[in-house]
C-alpha cells in the first residue's frame, strides 16, 4: 500500500508540476518499450519507425522516449514504471510478453494510458492493438499460387502460435483457390530472430523444390537465399525489404504502426483517448502491401490489387466459407465469415494442408 501511496503522490506532484506549464507549451510524452534492438531490421525496427513518425507528425506537441531490448518480466515493469514516473502520458508496450506487466503497472498509474501490442488483456487505461496480417497473407497466397511452377510453396514459421497458423491458413486457402495442385511445406524455425537459421530454413525449402517461399520471420535472410537460388519468389515481411525488389521480392506485407501511433497520441492530446481493442488490417492502413513488382504478370497483379481493394473496403473476408478443417470436419458454411474469437485463438490447419501443428 505504501508504494501505491508514494506512486500516487509522486504522480500527483508531477501532475501539479506539469499543470503549472499547462498554458499550451506542455508536451505530451509518449514512451515505447521495445523487446529487441531498434536495429533488428524487423519487428522493433518498424515500431521505432512508428515512433519517429509520431515525432514528425506532431512535432513540438510531443516528446517520445524509448528503451530497447527490454526483457519480458520484471525488467519491463521497471521500465514502464520509470516512464510513468517521469511523466509519460501514453506508453506503447510492443511485445506479447509484456501483457501481464502492462496490466500490473497500468493498475498503479490510472492516469497514464497504456497500449499493448498483440495481447488480449485490457483495462480502463489499457488498450490493445494488433494487425490483421492474415489479410496480407491472402494476397501473398494468391500471387504465390499463380507464380509457382513446381506447385511447392515453402513457408517459414516462427513458433506454432495462432498468429502464425492464421497466416499459413490464409495463404494456403488463396493459393489453392487459384491452383488446386499447390502444396505447402512448412518449417518451424523456433525463433523470432535468428537470421542464420532463417537462411537455412529457406535454403532447405528451396532444395526441396519450393519456388515460392513465404516467411513469418523478420529478417531478409530468406530473400538473400532466394536471390542466390535465382528463380525463387519471396515476399517482404514486417518491412518492405525493397532492396530485394523487383525479384526475388515481388511484394510484401508491411507493419505500418505509424497511423495508429499518431492517431492514439493525438487522442491523448485531445483528451479523447479511450480503452479499445483495435485489430486493423489493410483498410485502415495498419497492414501495408508493398508494391507488387513487374516480375508478377500484369493480370495476376491486377487480381491481387482487386483483392486488396475488396479486403480494404470490407466486401471480402479472407476466411469466407465453405472452409473445412484439416480433419475434414466443417468449419465455415458457404458464405459464412470467421469470427474474430476463432481467428484469435486459431490452432488448427484448414483442409488440404499436410503435416501437424507441433505441440
Amino acid at each position, binding site marked *: 500500500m*505504501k508504494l501505491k501511496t508514494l506512486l500516487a503522490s*509522486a504522480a500527483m506532484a508531477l501532475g501539479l508540476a506539469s499543470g503549472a506549464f499547462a498554458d499550451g507549451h506542455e508536451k505530451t510524452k509518449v514512451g515505447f518499450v521495445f523487446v529487441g534492438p*531498434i536495429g533488428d531490421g524487423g519487428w522493433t525496427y518498424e515500431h521505432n519507425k512508428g515512433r519517429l513518425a509520431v515525432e514528425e507528425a506532431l512535432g513540438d506537441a510531443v516528446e517520445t522516449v*524509448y528503451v*530497447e531490448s527490454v526483457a519480458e*518480466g*520484471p*525488467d519491463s515493469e521497471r521500465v514502464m514504471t520509470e516512464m510513468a514516473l517521469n511523466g509519460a502520458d501514453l506508453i506503447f508496450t510492443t511485445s506479447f510478453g509484456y501483457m501481464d506487466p502492462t496490466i500490473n503497472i497500468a493498475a498503479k498509474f490510472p492516469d497514464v494510458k497504456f497500449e499493448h501490442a498483440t495481447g488480449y488483456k485490457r483495462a480502463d487505461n489499457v488498450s490493445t492493438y494488433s494487425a490483421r496480417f492474415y489479410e496480407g497473407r491472402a494476397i501473398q497466397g494468391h500471387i504465390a499460387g499463380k507464380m509457382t511452377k513446381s506447385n511447392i510453396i515453402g513457408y517459414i514459421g516462427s513458433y506454432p502460435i495462432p498468429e502464425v497458423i492464421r497466416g499459413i491458413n490464409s495463404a494456403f486457402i488463396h493459393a489453392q483457390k487459384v491452383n488446386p495442385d499447390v502444396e505447402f511445406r512448412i518449417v518451424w524455425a523456433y525463433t523470432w530472430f535468428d537470421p542464420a537459421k532463417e537462411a537455412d530454413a529457406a535454403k532447405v525449402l528451396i532444395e526441396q523444390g519450393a519456388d515460392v517461399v513465404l516467411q513469418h520471420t523478420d529478417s531478409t535472410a530468406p530473400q538473400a537465399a532466394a536471390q542466390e537460388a535465382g528463380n525463387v519468389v519471396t515476399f517482404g515481411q514486417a518491412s518492405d525489404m525493397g532492396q530485394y525488389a523487383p525479384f526475388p521480392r515481388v511484394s510484401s506485407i508491411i507493419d505500418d504502426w505509424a497511423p495508429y501511433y499518431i492517431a492514439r497520441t493525438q487522442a491523448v492530446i485531445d483528451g479523447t483517448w479511450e480503452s479499445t481493442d483495435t485489430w486493423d488490417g489493410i483498410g485502415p492502413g495498419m497492414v501495408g502491401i508493398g508494391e507488387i513488382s513487374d516480375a508478377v504478370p500484369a493480370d495476376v497483379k491486377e487480381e491481387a490489387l482487386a483483392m486488396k481493394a475488396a479486403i480494404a473496403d470490407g466486401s471480402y473476408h479472407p476466411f469466407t466459407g465453405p472452409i473445412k478443417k484439416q480433419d475434414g470436419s466443417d468449419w465455415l458454411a458457404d458464405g459464412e465469415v470467421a469470427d474474430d474469437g476463432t481467428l484469435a*485463438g486459431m490452432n488448427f490447419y484448414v483442409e488440404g494442408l499436410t503435416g501437424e501443428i507441433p505441440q
Partner: protein
Amino acid sequence: MIQLEKRPQPSRLFAYLTPLLAVLATFFFGGLLFAALGKDPVTSIMTIFWEPLFGEFSFYYRPQLLIKGAPLVLIAIGLSLGFKAGIWNIGAEGQYVMGALFGAGVGLAFYPAESVFIFPAMVLAGAFGGWAWAMIPAILKVKFGTNEILVSLMLVYVAEQFLASMSLGLLKNPEGFGFPGSRNLQQYASAHNAEIFAGSGMHWGVVAAMIAVIFAYVLLARHRLGFAVRVTGEAPRAARFSGVNPSRLILFCLGTSGLLAGLAGLFEVAGPAGQVSIDFNVGYGFTAIIVAFLGRLHPVGIVLAGLLMALTYIGGDIAQSQLGLPAAAIQVFQGMLLFFLLALDLLTNYRLRFGRAEAA
C-alpha cells in the same frame, strides 16, 4: 620494465581501493564514450549511478535494486564456494531454469487449489531442480573425472531447449489462446512469491539471499567444511593430507550452487517474473559468475557486487529512456566496468615493481 611480485598476503588496502579505482576509471572512459555519442558525460553517469539511489524517484528504484540484485547474489554465493575450492560451475543459468521449471511445475500441478503448503512445496521442488541439474556435472566429475566447466555449460543449452518445450507444451496456459507461456503465478495466491512488505522489493528470494550470505560467511569463517573449501583452493595437496575428501567436496560445492541457483529461479518465476515463458531466463546465471569474481568470492563483497550490477542495469535503462542512449552503449559501459574491476584486482595480490627485469 614493470615487474609483478606476489604479495605474501593479499593487501587489505587494495582490496577496498581497487573497486573504487575501477569505478573511477570506468567513469572516465565511459564518459568519453558517452561524449563521443553526443551526450553529456556527467549527466549520463549521474543518471546511471545517482538517479536510482538518490534521485527523485529513488523510493521506487531502491526496492528494485533488491529485486534485480537478489537472484544475482543468491546464485553468486553458491558459485563462490565452488570457485574458492577450484570447482567451476558455470552452468548456473541452466540450474536456474530447471529450478524455475520444477518449482512452477509443482505449483501449476495444484492449480487451482489453494493451500499454505503449495508455496513451500514449490520452494523444495525448485531447490531440488537446481540441485539435481548440478549433480549431473558433479557425479560425472567424481565418477569419470570429466571437466565440470564444460559439462555444466553444455547443460545450460539443454535446459533452455527444455524450457522452450515446456512453455510451448506441458506448462502452456490452457486459457492463453494458444500463446506460449504458462499461467501467471502472480494471479495464483498460493503459489505467488509476493512481496513480504508491499513496495519494499523484499520477497522470499531476497530473504533467501540474505540467509545464504550469512550461511556462507559462517561456513567459511567457522566451519570445518569451509576450511576444506579454502584449503582445497589454495593448496590442493595439503588438503588431501589434512583429510579433505575431494569427492565429497565436489558434490557439496556443485550441489549447493545448483540448489541456490534453482531457488533463485523458483523465486523469480513465482514472483517478479510470474510465468514460465520461452525467454524467461535473462542471463542471471552468467552474470552471477561475474558478480562472484567482482565480489572477490567473499560473501560481503558479493552482496556489494550484486547491488552494483543491479544498479548499472537499472540506471542503464533510465539513461536509455531519459537521455536516448542506445542499449548497446550501456552494454559497452558495463563491459568496461567489468574489465577494470577484473584487471585492477591484480593490485590486491601483487605488487608492482618498477625497474629492469632480472634474467627471467
